[in-house]
C-alpha cells in the first residue's frame, strides 16, 4: 500500500514481447506477488495498476499487458501510445524471442514517444540449463540502444532487492521495477517531460 505522500505520479507502462516470453507472469509477480505455472495466454490486452511509495511520493504504475502473437501486432500502437515506459520481454531460452524483442525496440524507436524509457527484460533466468541468449549479448545490445537491461525470473522472483530495501519501497517489487521507476524519475527531473503527470 502506498502512503499518502505530497506527490502523486502516474506512469503508464506497456509490456511487449513474443508469445510465451512471460509478459503476464512478470506483471503478475509485480502486482500480485504470485506466479502461475501455466499462465493463460492474454487475449486482447490486460490492464493492471500498482502503486509504489518512494520517499514522499506515490507512483501509480498503470500497466498494459499485451497479446504476444504477431497476428495481433496491429493493435500494439493503441497500447504503447502515450506510454512513459515500455518493457520488452524475451525468453532467455528462446533466440527467436530475442530477435522479436529487437524488432519491438526498433518499432518503438521509430514510432513511440521519444521520451519513452525502454527496458529489456530477459525472463526465465531460472532456466539456466536451457539458455540460448547470452546475458552479455543482451547487455551489449541494451547499452547500444540506451535500454535498461536485466535478467528476471517471474517464477523464482530472482532479482528481488534485499529486505531492507524492500521495506524502503513498502512492497516487494523486483529490481527491475524499482530501477525502472528510478529511470522514470531521473528523466522526469532532467527533462520535465509530459509523461509523468504530477498533481
Amino acid at each position, binding site marked *: 500500500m502506498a502512503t499518502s505522500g505530497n506527490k502523486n505520479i502516474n506512469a503508464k507502462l506497456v509490456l511487449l514481447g513474443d508469445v510465451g516470453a512471460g509478459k503476464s507472469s512478470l506483471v503478475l509477480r509485480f502486482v500480485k506477488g504470485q506466479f502461475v505455472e501455466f499462465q493463460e495466454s492474454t487475449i486482447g490486452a490486460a490492464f493492471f495498476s500498482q502503486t509504489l511509495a518512494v520517499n514522499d511520493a506515490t507512483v501509480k504504475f498503470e500497466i*498494459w499487458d499485451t497479446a504476444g*502473437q504477431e497476428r495481433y501486432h496491429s493493435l500494439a500502437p493503441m497500447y504503447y501510445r502515450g506510454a512513459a515506459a515500455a518493457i520488452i520481454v524475451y525468453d532467455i531460452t528462446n533466440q527467436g524471442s530475442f530477435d522479436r524483442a529487437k524488432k519491438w525496440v526498433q518499432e518503438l524507436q521509430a514510432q513511440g514517444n521519444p521520451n519513452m524509457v525502454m527496458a529489456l527484460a530477459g525472463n526465465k533466468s531460472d532456466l539456466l540449463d536451457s539458455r540460448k541468449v547470452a546475458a552479455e549479448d543482451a547487455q551489449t545490445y541494451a547499452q547500444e540502444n540506451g535500454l535498461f537491461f536485466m535478467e528476471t525470473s517471474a517464477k523464482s522472483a530472482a532479482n528481488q532487492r534485499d529486505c531492507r530495501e524492500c521495506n524502503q519501497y513498502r512492497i516487494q517489487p523486483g529490481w527491475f521495477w524499482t530501477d525502472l521507476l528510478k529511470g522514470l524519475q531521473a528523466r522526469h527531473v532532467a527533462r520535465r517531460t509530459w509523461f509523468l503527470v504530477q498533481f
Partner: protein
Amino acid sequence: MLETDLHDLSDDADYAASQQQGSTTMMRTDSGRGSSSSEHEGAEVVYSKENVTIHPTQFASERISGRLRLIKQGSCLFITWIPYKGQNSNAKLSERDRNLYTIRGVPFTEVRSIRRHTPAFGWQYVIIVLSSGLAFPSLYFYNGGVREFLATVKQHVFLVRSEEDANTFLVNDFQNPLQRTLSSLELPRSGSIASAVSSASVDVSPSNSERRAGEDSHDERSRISRYGGKQRHKAQDPARDLPIQILEKFSLVTKFARETTSQLFRENHNNGFSVAEMRIQNQSSLDSPQTSSNDLEKVTDDSPVVQDPIQFDKLTLVWGKPRQPPLGSEEWATFLDAEGRVLDSTSLRKRIFYGGVEHNLRKEVWAFLLGFHAYNSTYAEREYLQSIKRSEYLTIKNQWQSISPEQAKRFTKFKERKGLIEKDVVRTDRSLSFFDGDENPNVKLLHDILLTYSFYNFDLGYCQGMSDFLSPILFVMGDESESFWCFVALMERLGPNFNRDQTGMHCQLFAISKLVELLDTPLHNYFSQHDCLNYFFCFRWVLIQFKREFAYEKVMHLWEVLWTHYPSEHLHLYICVAVLKRYRNKIMGEQMDFDTLLKFINELSGHIDLDAAIRDAEALCVCAGENGAANIPPGTPPSLPLDDGSYYIQQDEVL
C-alpha cells in the same frame, strides 16, 4: 470532359451552381432546376453505373438499387449513390431506407479506404469506409464495373493498395503504424459525433420523404455545395470536416429505433431511463440466484401504469422469459423420427435456447448445432459421414506428421506454427482435471487437432484464442476426429475473428457500438465523451465468445445457446450490450475512462450472471428488432462469410 457527361448532369446534379453561390442557405433556396450549362463549370461525371445495389437485410425483397456516380469538381472527387424510385413493393420501408442510405455527394477527402470483394459466385461489391470509421453499406455491382470504378478513382485520387490486404485500397494512406491502427480500428471520436449529430439534425427535414427522383439532384448538389463551403473553413475548424451525410443516417436509424423501443420500454421522463433500464438496475442490485423464476411477476409489479394493454403484453412478453431446465434424453428423443432425423429443427433450437442441453447429450446435439451433422440426416448417414470424415482427418493429420526433423529444419513456418501451438495448449484450461497433469493425453489432442487445422486451413493458420474454442469442444466430443470437424464447423463462422486485418473483430465491435447507441443512448454518449467508442474493452468477450468470462460449465451452456442462432445469429453482441447495460451506472457513476473500463471489464470475469445476461440479451434483441439487425453489417461473424474461401487469405503473414 465529355459533352454527354455534361448533358447527363442536368437531370440530377447541378451542384456546380453551389460554387458560385458559396452559401448553403442561398443554395437551398435556389429551387430552380433548369440550370444552365454555365453552372456546370468545373464539374464532370467521370463514372456512372446503373444497378448498383445495397442489401440492407438478408431479404432479397428489401434490396435497393440505384445509380452510382463519381463526380469531379475542381480538384475534388465526390461519390454519389441515388436509389431508384418505386422499385420496392413495401413502399413505407423503401422510402425510409431510401432516405437513409442515399449517398449525396461525399468527397473522397472523407474516404479512408475501399475494400473490393470478388466472390467466386454472386456479385462483386465494395465497402467504402470513411475516415471517421463509419462505412457505407456494401455496394453490389449488379452490372459489374468494380475494376472500372477503382480505376476511375485512382485517376483522380491518391489510391494505394493496402500492404495487409490486396483487396483494400487506401485513399488516405498512413505510413505511421499508430495512425494505421487508429484509423483501422477506432470509431469516430466524441467531438466529431456530437457536433456532427447536432448539425445533422438541421438537415432531416420532413419533406425528405416527399421528394421525387428528380429532386435528388437538389440533395446531391447541396451536399457538395456545403462541402465546398466547409472546405474553406477547414483550416480554422477541423471539427467541421465531417461526413454529415452518413451521420444523418445513423441519427435517423437511432431515432426510428428509439421510437419503436420506447413503445415497449416506456420512457420514464423523470430520470431519462426507460423501464427496461430501470429493470436492469433492479436486477443488478439483486445479482443473486433468486432473481430467476418470478421475474415475470416482478415486471408487472414494478411497471408504471400502462394505458395500452397491448403494449403491456409486449413488455411482459419480451422481458425476462424464465430459463428452463436443460434438454434431457427423453425430450430429445421426441425431436427425432425413427431413423434419427430431427423433424423440427426450429423448435429444437428454440428449446435449447431457453434451457441448454444436459451434459451427457451434448456430444450428440453439438454436432447438429455446429453444423457438422445436418438436422435431416439419419443415424445411418451420420455414421457413414463420421467414418468418411475420420479418414479424411487422418489424411490431413498425416500431412504434418510425415514431416521429418530434417524437413522441419527447412520449414520455418511449420516450426513456428507448431511452437506457437505447443506454447498455448499447455496453458489452456489446465486447472480442469480433463487437462491437468504432466503428459496429459488431452493436451496432446488439443495440439494435434490445432496443428491439423492449421494445415486444413493453412491461410488462417493458428491464432491465439483458437485453443480456447477447441478446449470445450474436445471436452464434450471426446473423439479426436469429431472434435476436429466440429471445430472446423465453428471456425467457418468465427474464423474471421482471427483475420490479420481484424475485419471480423472490427465488424463486431462496430456493431456493438451501433447497438448501444440504439438501445442505451446515454451510455453511448458517455462512451463517446470518454473516447471509448472503439469498444476495445469488449475485445476478449467477442474474440472467444466469453470463454474467459464464465466457469467452464457456463461457457458450454452459453455456447450452445448462441449456436442455436435464436433469436439472432448475433445474440453474443446483444449479450455484450446487456452486460454493459447492467453495469452502466457503475461505469458512468465512477466516470471510468478507457483504461479503467478495460480493467473493470477484465475483472468482471467470473462475476457475470449468465442467465440474467441471456434474458436481457434476448429482450434487447427482440426490442431492437429489424433496426438492431440493420446495424450489424452483412457478413459479421458468426454469419457465414459472404465471400468464397478467399476470405481467409492473410497477406504478409508471419505465422
